[in-house]
């Protein structure tokens, strides 16, 4: 297939946010699949309570511009701005503090939804990492998902953008899964694949991102219908080789999107490309070691769980039930899943 994957780069300043958002979306024909849809979820990156000018969170003006554009083209939509609680505060507090509640008050069809408090169901995922996933009903029954990520460095994974924004959909003990990030993001993005992706690169974050880095003005908005393509361009813009970002590869392999055959439209890469500071490599490797240990300890915990299950089986508590109903291949699958997978 020779069709190019479109990624737009649009320059944006404080005075031209709305114009830039409209252009970024139009260039990739971003609303082409919205006909007949009733509900749209917009997911900004609100991983903390610092304002967008700190480089940590998505600029609410971009989200408002998307709302305005949606409302002018599809006036009957119900729009949810969705986020889950972060390590600092509840999503409700974060919405209020960062100006998202004001958007919801301004537009009657817009509602801020704290996913951590939403009614949830458990979905049998059988993913690379998650065997089950806790899914908020607002997302499950939403018709169109727009991810509005923030352009940032990430101390552990080099880069944070659209794919990493999906980490906010994980509603259980997020901090425990950092060591398993690559597989977690592949699963999350395969399930919650955004229909349209935007990256807020107006004021981005470099250094020790994604929460404690330093603001850096890049002045761009990146848009694509393909999350892998958007992140490939996003990483390149801040001078990070996409091949270094392992979760990008994993997600691509999983069919979430493509990093090849990308056509950049709007601005040229050379016009906007910059070089972000990254933390000294020795600190990066310390972080990686910590994550490897976390991953190893998770495997140990799963192995311990398997041993415990085996003990129960051997002591005949429930084993007779299981052995009658499962074939050997199913039992092997159960063992494999117990060691390698977790509930999300």
């Amino acid at each position, binding site marked *: 297939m020779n069709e190019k994957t479109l990624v737009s780069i649009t320059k944006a300043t404080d005075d031209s946010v709305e114009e830039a958002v409209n252009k970024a979306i139009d260039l990739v024909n971003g609303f082409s699949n919205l006909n*007949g*849809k*009733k*509900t749209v979820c917009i997911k900004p990156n609100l991983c903390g309570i610092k304002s967008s000018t700190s480089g940590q969170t998505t600029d609410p003006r971009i989200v408002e511009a998307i709302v305005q554009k949606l409302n002018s083209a599809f006036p009957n939509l119900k729009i949810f701005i969705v986020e889950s609680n972060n390590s600092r505060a509840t999503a409700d507090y974060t919405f209020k503090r960062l100006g998202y509640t004001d958007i919801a008050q301004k537009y009657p069809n817009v509602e801020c939804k704290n996913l951590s408090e939403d*009614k*949830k*169901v*458990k*979905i*049998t995922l059988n993913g690379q990492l998650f065997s*089950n996933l*806790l*899914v908020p009903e607002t*997302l*499950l*029954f*939403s*018709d169109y*998902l727009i991810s509005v990520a923030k352009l940032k460095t990430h101390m552990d994974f080099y880069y944070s953008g659209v794919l990493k924004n999906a980490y906010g959909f994980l509603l259980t003990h997020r901090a425990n899964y950092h060591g398993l990030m690559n597989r977690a993001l592949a699963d999350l993005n395969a*399930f*919650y*694949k955004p229909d349209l992706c935007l990256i807020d690169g107006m004021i981005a974050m470099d250094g020790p991102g994604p929460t404690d880095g330093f603001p850096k003005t890049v002045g761009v908005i990146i848009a694509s219908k393909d999350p892998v393509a958007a992140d490939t361009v996003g990483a390149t813009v801040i001078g990070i080789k996409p091949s270094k970002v392992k979760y990008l590869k994993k997600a691509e392999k999983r069919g979430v999107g493509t990093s090849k055959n990308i056509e950049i439209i709007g601005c040229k890469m050379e016009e906007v490309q910059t070089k972000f500071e990254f933390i000294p490599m020795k600190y990066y490797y310390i972080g990686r070691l910590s994550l490897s240990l976390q991953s190893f300890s998770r495997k140990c915990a799963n192995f311990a769980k398997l041993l415990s299950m085996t003990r129960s089986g051997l002591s005949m508590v429930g084993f007779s*039930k299981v052995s009658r*109903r499962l074939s050997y291949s199913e039992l092997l699958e159960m063992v494999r899943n117990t060691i390698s997978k977790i509930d999300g």
Partner: protein
Amino acid sequence: MKVINVGIVGCGQIAQEAHIPNYVTNPKAKLTALCDVEEQAVRALCEKNNVKNCFTNYEELFDSNLVEAVSVCVPTRYHSKVVTAAAKRGIHVLCEKPIALNIKEAEEILDAVAKNNVKFTVGYNRRFLPNLILAKEYLQNGKIGKPVLARASTVTMGPYQPQIDISKYKEEAQKRVGCLFDSGVHLADLMIWLLGKPSEVNAIMSTYFEGVTVDDSAIMQVKFENGALGSIHVSWIDLPNFKATENTRRVEIIGTHGLIEADCLGPSLSVYNRNSLTSKIKGKTWITPANFDPMLPQEALAWSFSKEIDSFLDSIIRNRTPPVTGEQAKESLRLILAAYESYKRKETVLMG
């Protein structure tokens, strides 16, 4: 916490598998008496479950003042007599399904429970399955649009159980009236609960087991007042492998925007809406309410019985209407009887 003294009349399979264990383990109840015409069997059960009072005559049990509530698990043809006798003495009743043999008897029951102001419910345990509760909620919230087609099926061994002597199959089958009456009524109840009032029905029936004189396989088709069409497939066939036969016990509802498919023995359901995230997922999305761990069908069934009994006790303690009402049970019986009428007359029966 108030504890209800409970008795059970009729100590056959359903009492032993569903009622006795759940009263014994529920802190809201104290199982104080068991009653069955088989004296030896009831004595053995009393001993096994540490129940002090054994009866072979339900009138004596009801007169003993030992119980405030009772589970009626006798064959359906005795429901009317036993339930009205209990109600007249002010005893609350959980009656096994179907409510009665015919509408006249069902109305006698409803009159008695209303006059004596006792709580009355019927054992449609599947309504307590978490997946079916979720299915109803999704239907009501329009998650699959307007319901158009529905199908419910179940294959259950009914009277053809390995532990029953094969020479007694005919007698056992007759006790149960027929597979549509005995097993299909669960699905009729679910269909009405999910889709509303039926307006017309027709049915075909058959008997595959030689010598048995009632239906042991049946298909009924129902039109509902909201325009939805439903079919119910039911048969008494012993296929004990739950995994291999999971497709035989499904409720499936197709709406204008998607479909819901649920295992009649829970706890998961699959939902698809042509626009939403569910439409992008490859294959089926199996959903379980967040507070449930995936369970085996047998575990889900056990759960439904425990919730049924808990809700009955709760309705007494909190003076609430039970989730399954006598009127609803009468409606599911009416639908099943109309199906038999249709088969007899070889024509569609309109339900006014």
